[in-house]
């Protein structure tokens, strides 16, 4: 399994040709308490950099941009009832969507864990 990160603090955890996308701990902390997550429909085509979801906290709504292109194969409907999971476990149970990658080479443009940690230090 490979995990990659974008500069917008999204992660994509890849298993075969399916990538699980969510936001990082840094992002959930910056957002504050998540109150609602708007997820796309299964089957929707997403391009790298396109809107994968919208996450709302009390005072802000932020787009979650997809780190890679593909088709949505699953969405985390648990987030509807418990959006707080995004804050509690962003890397695990707080995942947003799973996509079937259409262009796996896009992953090479993203940061690995070490590079992301270095990136965080610059902020």
């Amino acid at each position, binding site marked *: 399994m490979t995990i990659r990160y974008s500069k917008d603090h999204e992660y994509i955890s890849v298993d075969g040709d399916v990538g699980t996308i969510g936001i990082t701990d840094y992002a959930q902390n910056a957002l504050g308490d998540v*109150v*609602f997550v708007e997820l796309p429909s299964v089957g929707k085509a997403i391009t790298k950099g396109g809107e994968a979801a919208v996450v*709302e*906290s*009390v*005072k*802000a*709504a932020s787009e979650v941009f997809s780190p890679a292109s593909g088709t949505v194969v699953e969405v985390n409907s648990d987030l509807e009832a418990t959006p707080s999971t995004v804050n509690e476990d962003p890397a695990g149970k707080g995942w947003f969507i799973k996509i079937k990658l259409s262009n796996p080479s896009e992953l090479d443009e993203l940061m690995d864990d070490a590079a992301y940690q270095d990136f965080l230090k610059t902020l």
Partner: protein
Amino acid sequence: MRYLPLTDVERGDMLAKVGAAHIDELFADVPHELRLKAPLDLPRRKTELDVERALARLSNRNLPAAAVSFFVGCGAYKHHIPATVDHLIQRSEFLTAYTPYQPEISQGTLQTLFEFQTQVAALTAMDVANASMYDGSTGTAEAVLMAHRITKRRKAILSGGLHPQYGDVVRTLSHMASDDVVSMPADIRADEDIIAEIDDATSCVVVQTPDVFGNLRDLTKIAEAAHAKGALLIAVFTEVISLGLIKPPGEMGADIVVGEGQSIGNALSFGGPYVGLFATRSKYVRQMPGRLCGETVDADGKRGFVLTLSTREQHIRRDKATSNICTNSGLCCLAFTIHMTLLGQTGLRRLARANHANAVALAEMLQGIPGVELLNKAYFNEFTLRVKGNAAAVIEKMAARDVLGGVPFSRLAPHSGYDDLIIVANTEVNTDEDRIAFVSALKGTL
């Protein structure tokens, strides 16, 4: 000047603190050649007494409803507002308070909004209501946009019973947003076949009941037909008192209910400010425009209220907002809720019955008068008369006899082809004398 506390000595001291020799130094960024040097061609300041005189002169050139026999409706209605309402809305802490963005010091406003939302939801028999829109007409346009967002379709069908000005507002906004609108022709007897218009491209059907002609409509079948095609039913009302006596839209399958709340708590005021009521089903709450007040607790565990689900709104979503609305109707909303609290369901029902009874009484007196035909089979407090001759001229002649007998439909829709219709509103303020005067004045014009 009575509104300006600073004295010239203080101004001087403050300028010194700021480090400016003259106030104009603080306007240095205004292009020099454009600064106003001479006074504008407008009157100079006036004392309170002079202002009172000037405006009283203007107000005396208007004919107030209470001075005549009054039967004008069509979207705004003359009702009795208890003295308590006007007194309470003039309390400083309500009148001069800001939007409740700091909830700890705005619980007065917030709790009244929560009570208002509860009342509107109950009256319309819907799950949830917002903290008001500007008025019924803009609320209707917003409801159409909301239906578009939900269905992801862009075509609205407007019933021929919808208030023409409401239709104009919807058409204006839809045209600007490049959305489609199908407007049914004026439906004076409530027998249009709107269901035949609904197709797979329809986002919503907008039906008013009681409609602009006063007809009562059963929305149930329309709701079913709309839902069968994946469309929504938007139910509109302009006379909220009707909900005290007739089946509410929430029980007839409506998905969004929007209307004018002016009749409860708010004066006629030549058309504004009024208060738009807006309610919907729970599943659509995140698509609802306008402010919302919700219950929560504070740090001590005490129940309190806050504006919530704000991320729908303009100040956060900016270009992705559900609408651009900033204000609600604040004080008009408060007036509504105070009056509704005084009424309670028992009072509202009695008030509604009194309205309907007065309409029935006038209708009975009009029976058998040659040249006058009542069009409605079922009505609440408003009905339409077909008269011999030009309706607008009839109204003018009645006015000369101190009877404001209603609204000629041609005023709202000059090209409808209906120049002979008068829409007559009856409320609890109308007396037997008023009705006798109406009949006499009307007969006198025929």
